[in-house]
C-alpha cells in the first residue's frame, strides 16, 4: 500500500460518505470504513508487516485518514439528522385552533353574599372586630325580650316573625328576625370591652318584589366605657368608604329601635350606584339601650356603646349592581356565573377588596 493508494482509499471513502442519503446507509459506510473488519482497521493490521522504519510514518498517515473519515462521518451524520428532523417537523402539525378546557378555576364561582361577607370581615377585622355567630332558631327572649322588645310591643309586629310550635314549657321558639340575639349571647358571655360583628342568615315572614323570607344581615357591636355616637358615625363612614372603595357621603336620620337610644337610620348618597341626588337607606344604628345592657348583666352606668345593622344582600346589590334580591336564592347557574366571583378573588385590604 503506497501513500497514493492510501490517498485513493481516503478519497473513495469520503466519496461514499458524501453520496449517502440515509442514516442507515451512513452506518453501513461507517462499518465498511471503520468497523472491526473495515478498510482502515484492516490497513492497521498490515502495519506489523512493514519494515520498522516505514511503520511509524505509515501508521501516522493511516491514523490521519481515520481521523478525517471519522470527522466526515460525524459531519454528514449531523447533516442527515438535521434533515431528518426538518422532515419530521414538516409533517407534525396540531390544529391549534381546537378549543381547550377552561379548567375548574375558571368554572367555579363564589356567591355574592359570601364574597361580600368576606369583604366586610376584612374591613372589620382591621378595625379590631371579631366575628360572632349564633343559632338561627332562637328563643323569644334573646330575639326580642332581652333586646327591650316586650311581648306586646308594637314593634314586634314589624318583625313578621316565623314561629315554631310551643314546646313542653309553652315556649315558642322563633327563627331569628335579626342577628341581634348574637349580640345578646356575646354580652352574656363576655365582659366589655366588646367589639364584634355578627353576620348571618335572618328570617322574616315576608315575600314580595323586594323582600325574601330569608336574607343576610351584618351587625356590629361595640361596648366599652367611652364609645359614643361620634364613634358610631365614624365607623359606619369608614366601613362604607372601604366597602364601596370610593368616598361615600353618609347621613344619619333620627329614628326609633327599641334596642338603641338614640337611634338612627343610615342613608348613603346614591352616587355610589350612579344616581346622584338620591339617598339610599342601608341600615339602622344607635347607642345600645341601657335596658339591653342591664338585661345582659352589664352595668349601664359604667359601660356604653353602639350597635348597627345592615343587609348584606342589599350591600352586594348596591356595590355590584345586582338588580333583584329574589334571584340571590334561586341557584340559577346563569345568574351565579354572571354575578358570582372567581375563586381567585380573595378579598384583602392590601390589593383592594374587589381587585
Amino acid at each position, binding site marked *: 500500500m503506497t501513500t497514493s493508494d492510501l490517498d485513493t482509499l481516503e478519497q473513495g471513502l469520503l466519496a461514499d460518505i458524501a453520496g449517502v442519503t440515509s442514516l442507515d446507509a451512513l452506518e453501513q459506510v461507517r462499518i465498511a470504513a471503520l468497523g472491526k473488519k473495515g478498510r482502515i482497521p484492516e490497513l492497521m493490521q498490515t502495519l506489523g508487516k512493514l519494515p520498522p522504519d516505514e511503520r511509524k510514518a505509515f501508521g501516522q498517515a493511516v491514523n490521519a485518514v481515520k481521523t478525517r473519515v471519522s470527522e466526515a462521518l460525524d459531519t454528514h451524520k449531523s447533516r442527515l439528522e438535521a434533515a431528518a428532523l426538518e422532515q419530521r417537523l414538516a409533517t407534525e402539525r396540531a390544529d391549534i385552533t381546537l378549543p381547550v378546557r377552561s379548567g375548574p378555576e375558571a368554572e367555579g364561582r363564589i356567591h355574592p353574599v*359570601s364574597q361580600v361577607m368576606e369583604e366586610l370581615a376584612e374591613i372589620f377585622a382591621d378595625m379590631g372586630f371579631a*366575628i360572632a355567630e349564633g343559632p338561627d332558631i332562637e328563643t323569644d327572649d334573646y330575639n326580642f325580650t332581652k333586646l327591650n322588645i316586650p311581648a*306586646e310591643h308594637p314593634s314586634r309586629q314589624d318583625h313578621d316573625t316565623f314561629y315554631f*310550635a310551643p314546646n313542653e314549657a309553652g315556649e315558642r321558639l322563633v327563627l331569628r328576625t335579626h342577628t341581634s340575639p348574637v349580640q345578646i349571647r356575646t354580652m352574656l358571655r363576655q365582659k366589655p370591652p366588646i367589639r364584634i360583628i355578627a353576620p348571618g342568615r335572618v328570617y322574616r315572614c315576608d315575600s314580595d318584589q323586594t323582600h325574601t323570607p330569608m336574607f343576610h344581615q351584618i351587625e356590629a357591636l*361595640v361596648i366599652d366605657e367611652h364609645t359614643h355616637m361620634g364613634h358610631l358615625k*365614624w365607623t359606619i363612614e369608614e366601613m362604607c368608604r372601604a366597602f364601596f372603595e370610593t368616598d361615600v357621603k353618609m347621613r344619619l336620620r333620627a329614628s326609633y329601635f327599641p334596642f338603641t337610644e338614640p337611634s338612627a337610620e343610615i342613608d348613603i348618597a346614591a352616587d355610589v350606584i350612579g344616581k346622584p341626588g338620591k339617598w339610599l337607606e342601608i341600615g339602622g344604628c344607635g347607642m345600645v339601650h341601657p335596658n339591653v345592657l342591664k338585661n345582659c348583666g352589664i352595668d349601664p352606668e359604667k359601660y356604653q356603646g353602639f350597635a348597627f345593622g345592615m343587609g348584606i344582600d342589599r350591600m352586594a346589590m348596591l356595590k355590584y349592581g345586582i338588580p333583584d334580591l329574589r334571584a340571590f336564592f334561586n341557584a340559577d347557574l346563569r345568574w351565579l356565573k354572571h354575578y358570582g366571583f372567581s375563586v381567585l378573588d380573595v378579598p384583602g385590604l392590601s390589593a383592594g377588596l374587589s381587585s
Partner: protein
Amino acid sequence: MKFTLSWLKDHLDTTASVDEIATTLSAIGLEVESVEDPAATLGAFTIARVVEAKQHPNADRLRVLQVEIEAGKPLMEVVCGAPNAREGMLGVFAPLGTHIPGSGITLEKKPVRGIVSNGMMCSAAELQLSEDSEGIIEVEADLKDRIGSRYVDAIGLNDPVIEVSLTPNRPDCTGVRGIARDLAAAGLGTLKPPRALGKVEGTSDCPIDIKLEFSPDTADACPVFAGRYVKGVKNAASPAWMQQRLKAVGLRPISALVDVTNYISNDLGRPLHVYDADKLKGAVRARLGNDGENFLGLDGKTYNVDNTMCVIADDSGPLGLGGIMGGEDTGATEATKNVLIESAWFDPVRTAITGRKTGLITDARYRFERGVDPQSVMPGLDLATELVLGMCGGTPSKAKVAGAAPDPQHEIAFDPASIAARSGLDVAESDTRRILEALGFTLGKASKGKPLTVKVPSWRPDVHGSADLVEEVVRIVGIDKVPSTPLPRVPGVARPVLTELQRRVRRARRTLAARGMVEAVTWSFIPKTEAQMFGGGDDALDLSNPISVDMSSMRPTLLAGLLTAARRNANRGFSDAALFEVGQAYRGIHPDDQYISAAGVRTGSSHASGAGRHWSGKAAAADVFDAKADAAAVLANLGIDPAKAQVTRDAPAYYHPGRSGTFRLGPKVVLAHFGEINPRILTALVVEAPAVAFEVIISNLPPEKRKARARPPLDESDLMPLTRDFAFVLNSDVAAGDVMRAAQGADKSLIRDVSVFDIFEGGKLAEEGKKSLGLAVTLQPQGQTLTDKDIEAISEKIKAAVKKATGGEIRS
C-alpha cells in the same frame, strides 16, 4: 299618619315651606313617606264660564263652546262632549299645553271634527278629584267672581298633604298637634296655644250611667271612661272644610257626629266614639268580654269576643271593642237625635293583643296600642262637645266620669353632661333646656353638681330615662351634627379574628369553587316531604306560620335544596350542574342541633376536570368517585388527611346503598358522606340521573392540631425510588382499600406509596366471581441501594400480606 299643611298651621305658627317642613320632619325622626301637592299638578286649571254652547256642525255628540276664561278678555272656542255643558255654567278650563293628570295627555292645538279647540273643559276624573267622568265639573255659582283664578285656590284644594311613617314609640305624633310640637322644638315656628273652648259643660246630669266593671287585677284595661250626653242634635253632613281635610288624609266623611270623632283623632291623637243614646239599653259599661259573646262591628262584620278583650257593653251585651271598634247597632246615624260622646283610655298591651286576635286594623287601635295621652280624656270630650254643638246644635249634659285617668308623669334625674358622653355632641345647657321645654318637658332649676329634674309630659310614654332625654336633644339639634370620631385602634398590625370554624368555612368554599363548582345559597326551609326524604321532617322543626308549603320545614341537610336547584337548572337546559353550598342545617331545634356542612351536587357529566363532551376525552357520567374526590379535597384542605380516615359503607339512606360511603374517624366521628343519590330520591324530586353528592360535616371535624409554623426538615434519600407492579386476583367483593392497606403494611420503612393502576372485572374472571387488581408499589431505599435479592424479599412479603388479608393471589 297624614295631615295637610293648613291643618298643621292650625297648631303651628310658621312661614316654613313644605320642603323645609318635610326635610326637618325626616331629620328629627318623623320620616316623611310622601308629600302630595295638588297645586303642583292642578295649578294650570282655572275657573271659566260657558258663554255660549252650540251644536257642533259635524258631530252629534259634540258642542262648540264660547268660554270666558278671564273677565273682559276675548272668548275662547272650545269643543266639548259633555252632556251637561250649557250656557251660563261655571266650569274648569285647561289651556293648550296643559298636562291632564287623569288621562295622561298634554293638550295640543288640533281640530276636532274640523273645529280647532283652544283648550278643554274638564271632568272631575280628568283632574283625578273623583271617579266622575260623566260630565264636566260644575263650579258653584257663587265663585263667578273668581273667573280666571286657579281652581285649586278657589275651592281650597291648594293644601299639600304630608304623610309621615311613624315609629311605634311616638303616640303623640298620631295627632297633628304632636307633629307641630316637634317642629316648633326644631325651630320651624311656634306652637299655638290649644283651641279655646266655649261653654260645653251642661247643667243637667248625664242621663246615661257609665260604669267600669273590672276585677282589681284587670282594672288597668280601662281605668277611665267619660261620657257626655247631648240632647236634640241634628246630624247632617259636616262642614265643607272638615270634609275636605278628612278626605285629604284619606278618611271618608260620614256625618257631622262621626266626622267630629275622626277629626279629633287625627288632630290630637285622641280617639272618641259617639253612640245614638236612644239605642242604648241601660248603663254603658267597660268590662272584659265573656266567651261566646259577639257584636256587629261598624264594618258590618260580626266579631266574637273572649274574656281577655275589653268590651263596651250595655244591658243587651257587647257593643264594641274598647279602643278598637264601635258597634253598628248603637252608632250615630243621620236620624240620631240624642248622642252620647265617649272618651276613655284603654290599655296599650291589651288593645294590641285584642287587635291581633281580631285582625282589626283601625285608627283607634293604631293610637291606643301606642299609648294615647291619658290626660287627653277630658279635653278630648270637651272639644268634641264644642264641635258637636257648633255643627249639630243640642244641649249638653254634665260629663259623667267613671274611674280616673292614670297619671304616668314621672321625673328623671338628668345630667346634661350625659348628652356629650353618649352622643359626642356638645349642646349648651340653655339649648338643652329650650328643646326639652318646647317638647313639653318641665325642667327644675339648674344647680351646680346636681342633676336636673325633668318631668315627662303625659303624652310621652316612650320617655323613661336619661338615655331617652339624650335622644330627644340629639334628634332635635340634629343627628347630622354629631362629629365623626375615630374609634381608637388597637395599637399595631390588626390581629387575626376568625375562629377555626370560620376559617374552615372559607377554605371549604374556596376549595369547592377551585374544583369548578358554583356556590349557591338556598333556603333554610324546604317542603316537609323533602325534609322527610332526607332524614328530617320532625314536627318540632316545622314552622307554625310558613310562607308556603314549599318553605315549611327546617332543612336536615343542604342536599334537598341543591338537588332541586339542579333540577331547575336542567329544566333551563343546563344538565351538567356542579353546585355547592356551605351553610347550616338542623337536626333539631336546640342551638347544638344546628350544624355547618359543605355540600355539593354534580349532575350529568360534571367533573372537576370539566363537563360535557369534548374532543379530548369521552364525556363520562358523574359518578361516586367524583363525589368522593370532592369530599376528600375539602377534608384535605381543612387539615384532615382523608387517607387516614376510614371509608365505610354506611352513608344515609338517601344515597345509593351500593355506591356511596362515609369518611369517619373511629366509630363516632362522621366526617363526610359521598355517593350517588338514591334513584328513589331522584324519582321523587324529578331529578334526572346521574346525580352524585357529598356532604362534609364541618362541625364534626376535630380541631386542627396546633402545628409549629416551622416545617420539619426535608428528609429525602438521595437514592432513586423504584416501582414494582403486582397484579392480584381477588374475590370480586374484596375492597381495594384492604389490599392497599395490606401491601402498605408489608414493610413500613421501605414502602412509600401504594396505588391502584388497573382494575379488570370482565371476561373469565367475572364468571368465577373474581377480579384483577393492578397495584403499583413504590419503594424508597434508605441508606443503600436494594439488591435484586432485597427486592425479591419485599415482593414476597407484599404477596404474603395481601394473601393473608384478602386471599388474593398473584395473577399468573
